[in-house]
């Protein structure tokens, strides 16, 4: 019998997060199902960034839990967490590319960290990926040398 994948890909249960005396998340519950697109709206300081940072495991809540595909982000062992993180993708507001690395090196980073592919294969894959977004000529450029739009790609 195959393993059943839970319908809710992201589950937040009773999240509480307080900064000083200010409670930003107050028992928040949330389900994001497979294929669902969710928009979080709110005024400045209402906790949108805190919620997102908690959902991707960058911020530890004071109480509550976050489950990604059924795995608790804050109590999972190192190996499960690593596997889970390899399947996650986050688009940061400022691009978050590594300023000291070229675009090719940025693309190559997860490949060199998590695979044992030979350098030549990784180079081909990097060029293919940059080509997919029309940046094949920017392989050796640093993030500071390209436009904001190119960074987002």
């Amino acid at each position, binding site marked *: 019998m195959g393993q059943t994948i839970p319908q809710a890909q992201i589950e937040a249960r009773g999240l509480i997060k307080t900064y000083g005396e200010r409670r930003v998340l107050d028992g928040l519950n949330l389900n994001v199902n497979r294929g669902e697109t969710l928009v979080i709206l709110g005024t400045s300081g209402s906790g949108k960034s805190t919620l997102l*940072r908690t959902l*991707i*495991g*960058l911020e530890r809540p004071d109480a509550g839990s976050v489950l990604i595909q059924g795995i608790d982000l804050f109590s999972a062992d190192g190996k499960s*967490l*690593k596997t*889970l*993180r*390899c399947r*996650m993708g*986050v688009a*940061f*507001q*400022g691009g*978050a*590319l*590594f*300023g*000291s690395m070229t675009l090719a090196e940025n693309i190559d*980073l*997860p490949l060199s*960290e*998590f695979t044992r592919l030979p350098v030549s294969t990784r180079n081909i894959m990097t060029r293919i990926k940059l080509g997919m977004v029309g940046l094949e000529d920017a392989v050796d450029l640093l993030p500071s040398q390209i436009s904001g739009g190119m960074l987002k790609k």
Partner: protein
Amino acid sequence: MISALIRGVGRNSLGLLAEAGGLWQLAGTSLNRLFIGPFQGDPIRFRHSTLLMVKAGYDSLPLASLIALLVGMIMALQSAQQLAEVGAISLMPKLVAASIIRELAPLLTAIIVAGRYGSAIAAELGTMKVSQEIDALTVMGVNPISFLVVPRLLALIISLPCLVLFSDFVGVTGGLMIAIGVLNLGARGYMLSTFDALGMEDLAMGLVKALVFALIIALVSCQQGLKTEVGAEQVGQSTTASVVHSIVLIIAADLFVTTIFFLKG
């Protein structure tokens, strides 16, 4: 007024304790990743570490050499003046060599590296924190300690003792230059007296200090960089704090290591 003062002292003391705790924790995690990590599938990034060794060591060589040369010359002049008064100028080479190798070369080289490379580490990591690059690493599943701290720690652990050895040589040479050029002493006699005065323990003390100072510079600079909050101003504050904290801890550690060697006899 008094209660506000007590509150202020309490708050600062707690802040200091938290900082010390954070540094201790970073030290434990980093050393664990450096020595145990490779056996648990977390390899050391040697290529990256080598590039950082060049930045930390090779690039600091001209400045460290210049300072060591000047200090060696100053030490020779100062000690010659004092020793001449008691008719013991022949002891000058021994005094210069012991001061340089046991104390001045490790201390001054470490302070130069803390100012030159430690500040660069804090600024680099601080900027990475502000621009969410460290968040990106974490989300990607790459441990920031293994990726950022361990290579810098390794680079300093290897390059600082090498720099100190070189400074030892240059500092003694500075003393020799003064001995020949100003005091009209013989080069052969000076070198024989220097080698006669020095034992393996002197060299070991300098190297132990260099190792301890390397740990301090790497850990303090990384800690300050990683705890940068938001904005360019914070990056500046982290950079300054990394240099100030490193220098204070280096001098305190110097006293500690010197005391241990002194008690050991």
